[in-house]
């Protein structure tokens, strides 16, 4: 897709990648996490994913039809927004919540900017923070994993925020998803499988995820405990939405810097803000806010990390 941004004379090199192909491959890469979410949290999770996706696609179709633009729902980007929004929601939410969130994501996160390729912010995250601010009670009630009745439990990060050090949760549980959390964020294994697909195909690069995760780990290692350099960085990497965010949302083509140098700055910034919120802020998790803030800073980052044109 970056090829579309190059304005130069021929000859051009053609790649097989087109916007649709990339988007649908991303959709594919999110499926493992979705399956894991449904296994861990039950059919409720599936309904939420479906409602969010259908709402997103319908909204985009409606908006584009009414404003007489070309209808682009087949390019898969609305589907991705719906899926990612759903993955950021707790499994027990009433179904109108993802629907409203998806509509908001598409309209305020994408359509008002002019559609695909022009949004400044990651649309799914715009929807998520809207939902978080609007219905905090629903957005912070997490059912227990593998428990298909409505028993709730706190997420590992929430426990940490309240001062109860969750040392009793084995890392394997965190890795496989045996913990409370949002639908798509809990099963790290499934997320990494999907991320591997994208990395192998070259649709995302390591710059953002690696710098993001590393920065967060570093800061939580240094400051995460009563004494310096005693923090449980592995816990932090495996908890919350860090892996989901770093690989699937912080790597959004449109809302992130163009150059590798810019991407590294972006990744570090995200990591910094995430760690600061997790360590000292009021919220237990800061991934969504961090990515959105860095999205806002991206125009600046792009400006100051422009590649020098050969010959100037």
């Amino acid at each position, binding site marked *: 897709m970056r090829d579309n941004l190059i304005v130069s004379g021929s000859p051009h090199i053609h790649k097989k990648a087109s916007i649709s192909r990339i988007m649908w491959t991303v959709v594919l890469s999110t499926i493992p996490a979705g399956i894991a979410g449904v296994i861990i949290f039950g059919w409720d999770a599936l309904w939420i994913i479906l409602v969010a996706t259908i709402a997103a696609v319908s909204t985009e179709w409606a908006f584009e039809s009414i404003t007489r633009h070309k209808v682009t729902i087949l390019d898969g980007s609305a589907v991705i927004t719906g899926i990612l929004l759903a993955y950021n929601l707790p499994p027990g939410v009433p179904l109108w919540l993802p629907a409203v969130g998806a509509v908001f994501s598409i309209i*305020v996160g994408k359509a008002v900017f002019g559609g695909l390729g022009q949004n400044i912010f990651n649309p799914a995250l715009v929807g998520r923070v*809207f939902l978080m*601010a*609007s*219905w*905090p009670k629903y957005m912070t009630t997490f059912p227990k994993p593998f428990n298909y009745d409505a028993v709730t439990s706190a997420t590992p990060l929430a426990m940490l925020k309240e001062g109860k050090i969750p040392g009793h949760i084995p890392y394997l549980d965190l890795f496989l998803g045996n913990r409370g959390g949002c639908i798509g964020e809990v099963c790290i294994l499934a997320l990494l499988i999907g991320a591997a697909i994208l990395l192998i195909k070259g649709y995302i690069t390591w710059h953002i995820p690696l710098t993001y995760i590393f920065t967060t780990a570093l800061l939580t290692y240094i400051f995460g405990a009563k004494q310096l350099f005693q923090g449980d960085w592995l816990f932090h990497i495996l908890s919350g939405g860090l892996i989901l965010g770093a690989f699937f949302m912080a790597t959004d083509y449109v809302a992130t810097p163009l150059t590798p140098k810019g991407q590294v700055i972006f990744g570090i910034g995200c990591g910094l803000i995430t760690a600061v919120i997790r360590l000292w802020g009021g919220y237990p998790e800061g991934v969504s806010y961090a990515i959105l803030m860095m999205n806002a800073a991206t125009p600046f980052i792009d400006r100051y990390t422009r590649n020098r044109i050969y010959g100037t």
Partner: protein
Amino acid sequence: MKALIKEFTKGIIRENPTFVLVLGLCPTLAVSVTVANGIGMGIAATFVLLGSSVIVSLVKDFIPGRIRIPCYIVIIATFVTIAEMSMKAYSPVLDRALGIYVPLIVVNCIVLGRAEAFACKNSMASSFFDGLGMGLGFTLALILISGIREFLGSGQLLGHTLIKGFEPIFVFGMPSGALLVIGLLLGFFNFLKNRKR
């Protein structure tokens, strides 16, 4: 007389200070959390607007051009102080709710803007009706915005619950919601304006 009525009505729709002139947004967004606050601010601002417009139009020939802005500010500030003190005395609840935005009426672009753009060039009668119209337009805009925000953000209007079982959308009570509402309203009014052409 017809001309005076025209001065009055223009402030309500054609040159509505909030939606058309896009002035005085700071207090508009800040206080529009509930309709009660909106009306309170609207009345206070209208009082200041009326008073200052009238006085400015009366003394306009006596003020040297170079220092006219500070002079207007002093006149406006006097009325704001009167409004402030009256509010503290007769309605301390409202005063607490509106907080720092009451003294900030001094720098409300609408008030200074009307003094500079209109009152200093027109007669007392015209200025009076202009001030009244602008104040009313401002108050109506406040009621519209705070009505939307209060209803969506807390399910109530003027403190009364309208629809049972309505899940309030808290974001509308927050600054972000205010910015969203005004952005969408401005877009909507633009849309209406564009359609007319």
